[in-house]
């Protein structure tokens, strides 16, 4: 709460000391503290992360999108936007050839040089950190301001915040314990840095690796066996069947065939679809528990 208040005060103070901003969009800082040099709402936007592509469509800025990554698969309309390839370490020439007035990136250290090159070309960029459920409202409001869709973006953000708050307050003590496995060899699991840990918690379970700060980290089968999750949730689609590997048979959930794939892009990134993800996960957890 204190942070939100501080943010509001900063937002009020900025135009006063900036002095050269237009009332339509205002000068804003992105999540890496870089000034977004945009004097009017963006008309041509390249989105270099699947989560921001989804967000831009959700706030009604889809028509302004002129470029996306090859990983942007939601909403289906995104397929009609030209792809510029990868979003991390993007091909800057391809991005610039879409003649964007705004490039939206995922906030990562690797994208620093991209931002510098876009700066040099006079193209505004906004780097957004979208890892946790709490990151979504701020990013939504910012993108709304940048693309001139503030009314819809602000009400969507408010709706999301209300639903998230009520989901959190309705949250009961976790009944089941799960491990979220991304890869089998070496075993890679999801940690507290990922929004999935909270999705699991809101669905009534606990991620047994919620003490791992990173979004994901390699671990050992011994650790998984010792933490003894009731269930294993598999992410991605090319993880081989764990039950066929002898070393995974040590894990009780694998022996008891309580392994469930998490299909669907709503489990790949934080989005407004998270409440669907929570609901379907809660149903699946109940179904597997009845086996």
């Amino acid at each position: 709460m204190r942070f939100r208040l501080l943010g509001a005060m900063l937002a009020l103070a900025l135009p006063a000391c900036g002095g050269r901003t237009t009332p339509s969009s205002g000068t804003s800082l992105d999540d890496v503290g870089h000034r977004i040099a945009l004097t009017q709402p963006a008309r041509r936007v390249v989105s270099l992360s699947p989560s921001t592509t989804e967000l831009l469509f959700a706030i009604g800025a889809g028509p302004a999108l002129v470029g996306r990554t090859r990983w942007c698969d939601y909403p289906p309309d995104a397929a009609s936007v030209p792809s510029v390839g990868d979003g991390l370490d993007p091909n800057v020439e391809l991005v610039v050839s879409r003649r964007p007035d705004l490039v939206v990136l995922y906030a990562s250290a690797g994208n620093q040089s991209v931002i510098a090159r876009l700066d040099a070309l006079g193209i505004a960029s906004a780097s957004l950190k979208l890892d946790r459920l709490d990151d979504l409202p701020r990013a939504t409001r910012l993108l709304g301001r940048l693309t001139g869709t503030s009314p819809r973006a602000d009400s969507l953000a408010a709706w999301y915040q209300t639903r998230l708050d009520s989901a959190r307050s309705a949250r009961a003590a976790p009944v089941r314990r799960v491990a979220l496995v991304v890869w089998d060899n070496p075993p890679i699991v999801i940690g507290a840095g990922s929004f999935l840990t909270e999705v699991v918690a809101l669905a009534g379970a606990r991620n047994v690796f919620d003490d791992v700060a990173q979004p994901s980290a390699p671990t050992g089968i011994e650790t998984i066996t010792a933490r003894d999750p009731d269930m294993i949730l598999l992410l991605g689609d090319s993880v081989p069947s764990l039950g066929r590997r002898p070393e995974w048979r040590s894990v009780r959930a694998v022996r008891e065939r309580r392994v469930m794939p998490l299909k669907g892009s709503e489990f790949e990134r934080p989005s407004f679809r998270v409440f669907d993800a929570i609901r379907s996960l809660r149903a699946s957890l109940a179904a597997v528990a009845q086996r």
Partner: protein
Amino acid sequence: MKWLALALVAVTALVAAVMVGPAGYSALESLRALAGRADPATVAIVRDLRVPRALLAFLVGGSLAVAGAALQALVRNPLADPYLLGLSGGAGLGAVGAIALHLGGAWALPACAFLGALLAVALVYRLALVTGSILDARVLLLGGVVVGAFAASLMAAIMVVSPAAELRNALLWLLGGFGNASWQAVLVFGAYAVLPLAALYLASRPLDLLTLGEEPARYLGADVERVKRLVYVAASLLTAAAVAVSGIIGFVGLVVPHAIRLLWGHLHRSLLPAAFLLGGTLLVAADALARTVIAPVELPVGVVTSLVGVPVFVLLVRRWTR
């Protein structure tokens, strides 16, 4: 006396590796579980996960050290290591190929890595025979570097082109680790490694002669060409299998033979078995560190061997040049 000490250190490392782990049992509890006197879950963790993992690490470490020692004698170059001859690039290409093609099945990735390594080995071998029927050690080295670089480029190209987001995990696998250790893996690798290890041991005497140079070795009665081919093929087969079960684990095959030469002398009859014991011991210790240092997160064991191996190597070189 030296042998007794080395064997004792090896056994100590194996037992210690079984006693520690991220599950958080005390050393005593772990030993009790090893004897079967604990609840089934603890017994399963110790007997089915820790013991095979320690044994596999020992076998792989020993094999890499022996392969490294033999290859260093073969190409008469102290910088030779088991991966020098294009093997790591080939294995990486195989692993990435398996993931990019979505090959399912528990053994798809190791099998493809093994095939990729063998393919690289065969290519380098063919290159080294280019001057006729003589296996040229210099061409062998150059060919290894070139084929390795070629395979690495192909691997990078696949990673850029392929839509499989899982490929970054293949890189983590390549960094080395014993996450997939099981009794099955121990038995398969153990049964497989016996033959090349025995072949290299039986070549001890001609390897001694080879270190003098090919001409003197020939005068002293060694069938130089036959020995070179045998050693190259046996060491490569050994390393290819090691890569298949555990990824690319650096420095064991490079540093351990040098350490043994400094401590033990240059005769391969004792150098090879001693390298096997020390290599195994070191890798078991490195894996124990990898499992426990930042638990519950696990480090790739190749990272640990390099972090430990580089300072040791620097110390050795300093002592050497003094």
